């Protein structure tokens, strides 16, 4: 099974035999890969009942829940890794969610679409309208992305929260690119954090 590039980067860096919570796990593609490839004790949380049902039907341990409120029910350091893929920008309070990720997990992976990508900038600068791009395909009035964030913004947030960035990956067109001009060129970013 081929995983989306950000998920593949995460899957490649989860050590075997660890405990993982994938928040906003969707249809469980990453969970299934982690269980299959690295013998990880992988759990998920997902808001959509239809997706949860798909996960359970394929034998995954997934709880229907809202990451904005339900992470509070997990004990401190219950997991070796928490994973939040492409969900941070939909959180009611991304700053508090980052705190929760690092409370519940020893380490956290966070991936998000970079709002400072040149296409987004161009759409605003030359079009004067909210961007609808490959990475952000939904119109402003339908999108669940209520807190758009750039790579530079996220670094600031991590610093303010005392979170240490251990690793980072940047992707354009499903291909990994360098960090130097990532805030211009990356469509997606993935960070591995600890505190």
């Amino acid at each position, binding site marked *: 099974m081929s995983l989306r590039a950000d998920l593949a980067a995460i899957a490649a860096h989860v050590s075997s035999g660890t405990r993982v919570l994938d928040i906003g796990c969707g249809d469980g593609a990453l969970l299934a890969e982690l269980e299959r490839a690295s013998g990880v004790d992988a759990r998920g949380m997902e808001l959509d009942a239809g997706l949860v049902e798909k996960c359970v039907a394929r*034998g995954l341990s997934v709880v229907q829940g809202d990451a904005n409120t339900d992470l509070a*029910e997990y004990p401190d350091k219950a997991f070796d890794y928490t994973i939040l893929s492409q969900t941070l920008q939909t959180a009611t309070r991304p700053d508090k969610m980052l705190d929760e990720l690092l409370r519940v997990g020893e380490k956290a992976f966070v991936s998000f679409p970079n709002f400072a990508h040149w296409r987004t900038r161009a759409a605003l600068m030359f079009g004067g309208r909210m961007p609808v791009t490959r990475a952000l395909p939904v119109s402003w009035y339908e999108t669940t992305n209520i807190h758009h964030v750039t790579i530079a913004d996220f670094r600031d947030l991590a610093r303010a929260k005392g979170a240490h960035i251990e690793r980072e990956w940047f992707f354009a067109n499903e291909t990994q690119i360098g960090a130097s001009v990532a805030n211009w060129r990356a469509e997606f970013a993935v960070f591995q954090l600890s505190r």
Partner: protein
Amino acid sequence: MNAAPASKVYTLPEDLPLDCGQVLAGAQVAYETYGELASDRSNAILVCHALTGDQYVASKHPITGKPGWWERMVGPGLPIDTDRYHVICANVIGSCMGSTGPASPAPDGSPYAMRFPVITIRDMVRGIVALLDGLGIARLHAVIGGSMCGMQTLSLAANWPERAERVLVIASTARHSAQNIAFHEVGRQAIMADPAWADGDYYAADASPDNGLAVARMAAHITYLSEEGLTEKFGRRLQDRSSKSFGFDADFQVESYLRYQGSGFTQRFDANSYLYITRAMDYFDLAEEHGGKLANAFDGSSARFCLVSFDTDWLYPTAESRHIVHALNAAGAKVSFVELSAPAGHDSFLLPHKQLDRVVEGFIK
């Protein structure tokens, strides 16, 4: 019991200790099985039954002649596939379909009636575990239950954690709420207010407390349905008449339906069993049994858990399932949870539901 095939009956070789401090000597557990037990005994699934249910999960009821209560779920090629699994369903202690209960003879030869000790959900499970011992099944592939059978399922997982690999709890709760107890008390008082109840000593008499038991069933039946379901099924429609009678006949279809449910129930159920089993459910509080903290109940459990609730179930609402999920998370147990949408309220778990089928089939695979 009529001329239908009787269940298998296992007589416990030892006294059954009860939570109240007494013991049941020579207790019997009636049970049905479906599908072949594998030679290594690894494919056994225990399906528990609800308050007024019985062991006839997938076979014709010997008294009513109706199909098994979960025939759409248990059978060849169905989600609980009897071509793959050996399914066991046992009548609980305290019931009246072959297992020892208040209608059974006490050691002195006459029925226990109200001399039957007050039992708990854990006592029921203790009886079932004794049956599993007798059948030589050390570890179940899965234990599955909805409603009161969900309570037994949770009790088994908490008190005999080594006995089940997978634990599936549908539309259930880890404790009876004040509202749950209140509805049960209405039912018990209806039975006890029936002169034919005679302090429970009616087995040799001409009449049984059928009127009281029917009212108890009617009250309980309302809690199994949703307002939406009742409105859709009956609305304010009148029964076999074009205008109101200005009397107290069953003018409305919903009245007629409830009366039918109530009287039909008395044909197959013992009033004293209803008292004892509702009491056991009211006493159920899994956290209380484990130092007041529900997470303690599941400490160190290696089983996989799955909880399912229905959005229109107001008897055991989603919040009760979530409460259990939180405890399992705190205990570090592997748990899945999903709230399914269904119009029929608590009874949804017994009705056709494709998503439920997929969850059950996928979880036990």
